[in-house]
């Protein structure tokens, strides 16, 4: 994965991260490669990723609709974890203040909420955007997102209770839960109830211990 010739040029890497105009123009015109290379360097140098967020902010200013920049931002935020939550919510808010319907900004914001949290003020934020412009469909979609996410946990926990009481699930339920599985989940869960517990543990991290306990306590004949 790591090109051999890079290791012999460590000294120059810091410069490569810098803000030279050549590199700036490369970032706009030659997407995948340059950003990919940058990520390798960031990892190798164990660079300060908060600084990186600032760098991305500058680059994103003139290019708020560039796929590569947003993907890079997501990569950095994922590495920083919940340390980045408020910064990411602020950043997307700023971009949305310039273009309240920026698709990338909304997707990123949803990703942050889902992975890192910060839901508390989201409905208020949507409310404010809708007060500014009731026709902002992206804000409406976000209201639904908010409601659906929260409701999914409720729906799944209801399903779990039903399964524990002997409910025989149809293929629709199995498919629906299947669609909620993420790569890091143990996919060998052949039975629906254990799969639901795994998904809940992921979607509702506050109660991860509770869902693990529920998984252990499943009645023997549960589907």
């Amino acid at each position, binding site marked *: 994965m790591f090109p051999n010739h890079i290791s012999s040029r460590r000294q120059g890497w810091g410069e490569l991260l810098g803000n030279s105009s050549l590199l700036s*123009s*490369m970032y706009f*015109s*030659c*997407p*995948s*490669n340059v950003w*990919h290379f940058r*990520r390798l360097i960031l990892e190798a140098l164990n660079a300060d990723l908060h600084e990186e967020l600032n760098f991305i902010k500058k680059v994103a200013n003139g290019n708020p609709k560039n*796929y590569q920049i*947003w*993907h890079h931002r*997501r*990569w950095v935020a994922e590495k920083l974890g919940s340390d980045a939550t408020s910064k990411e919510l602020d950043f997307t808010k700023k971009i949305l203040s310039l273009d*309240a*319907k920026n*698709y990338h900004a*909304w*997707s990123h914001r*949803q*990703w942050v909420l*889902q992975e890192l949290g910060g839901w508390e003020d989201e409905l208020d934020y949507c409310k404010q955007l809708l007060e*500014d*412009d*009731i*026709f*902002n*469909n*992206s804000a409406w*979609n976000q209201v*639904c*997102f908010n409601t*659906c*996410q929260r409701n999914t946990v409720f729906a799944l926990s209801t399903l779990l209770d039903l399964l524990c009481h002997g409910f025989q699930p*149809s293929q*629709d339920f199995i*498919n629906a839960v*299947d*669609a*909620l*599985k*993420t*790569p890091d989940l143990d*996919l060998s869960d052949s039975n629906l109830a254990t799969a639901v517990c795994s998904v809940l543990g992921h979607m509702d991290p506050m109660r991860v211990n509770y869902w693990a306990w529920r998984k252990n306590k499943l009645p023997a004949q549960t589907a």
Partner: protein
Amino acid sequence: MDSSETQSPTVTQREQWMVESQVFQMYELLSSVPRNAQSVLLELQRDKHIEFLTNGLRQLGPSFCVLDANRPWLCYWILHSIALLGDSVDDELENNTIDFLSRCQDPNGGYGGGPGQMPHLATTYAAINALITLGGHRSLSSINRGKVYTFLRRMKDPSGAFRMHDAGEMDVRACYTAISVASVLTILDDELVKGVGNFILSCQTYEGGISGEPGSEAHGGYTFCGLATMVLIGEVNRLDLTSLIDWVVFRQGVEGGFQGRTNKLVDGCYSFWQGGVFALIQKLHSIIEEQLRLLDAGGSAIDSPQLASISCHSGKRGSAKFSNIGFNFLKEPAEMEPLFHSIALQQYIILCSQLQEGGFRDKPGKHRDYYHTCYCLSGLSVAQYSYSKDADSPPLPRAVFGPYSNLLEPIHPLYNVILDLYHEAHEFFSTS
């Protein structure tokens, strides 16, 4: 609410009114000018477009900025547009393009944005569609299908979706580009297909359209990609087609063209992304009827054993199951009239997006570019053929806005390549 209170218009309203006034000005212009000027405005400026397009292709020589990652896209947008206009490029340009695209091919499979660049699903889709559009043995045999397959497998995520490139973003666009390429090259199999349907289903929103990622807003580009992918993998019956239709019909505005999302502005490129959705819908008549019947009977629109059997693939195992879906789709007759206003769309494309000096644009006030030229022309073709029962039977004159000479070549709506060229490629890849 106090009736004397007037609210100032929102951003959405202001922008919409501005566009409407510009568009209506252009329509009024048409009715106010003398007959001979009128016929100029209604005409597709073929020669000017070809000139604009051919210049664009010539510019992609060595002197073009080497860091541009868009070149395979430019090849596809330009070549496809030229082909839609019923024209072709000269041998030299053709050979140069084949050579260039070959050099974009990564030794481990897939095409990057330029020689030496990382392979990427979007540029792979563009390169392969461009090569199919050029047609001929040299072009088609330059594609290393085995390596493309390896690349697609590498881009496949355990969740079922695809990543655009190594450690890249995962979305409905990536799924479409991967599945479309695999299908047209007849290398689509269970390994590539598994889980894709679940991912796309999770992207159908409460509005009925499809988003890029689960939770995002319903969007024309992703709706086309999602719907086409579901057809190609034989799982289109799993989508709620009735609510998808309910969403997409309201995306055609007073201007005649399409918006990409609710309450956003019209844009010429959605002539294809949204218009193409209708072309696909027309051939899914039996599935839609079944879903409607279930809805009326009080059941869920997607819970029926009959639906599973109507879905587009046979029971064969392995890649044989998928390899003829694209081909057989064309044989489905278009049982329903188009659910959009075909003439209004054509009117928007010709009068508002077309530039007299060549090329097409998003809307009045924007600049022309090759992307919009490609998708405005693709959308125009879809609209012109929307009343044709069979994919390639020539439309009646009343189906074509402006003079009948405006008629373009028909396309295959799943891949957006010229129909004849698709058949040639299908023949080539099925037998080699």
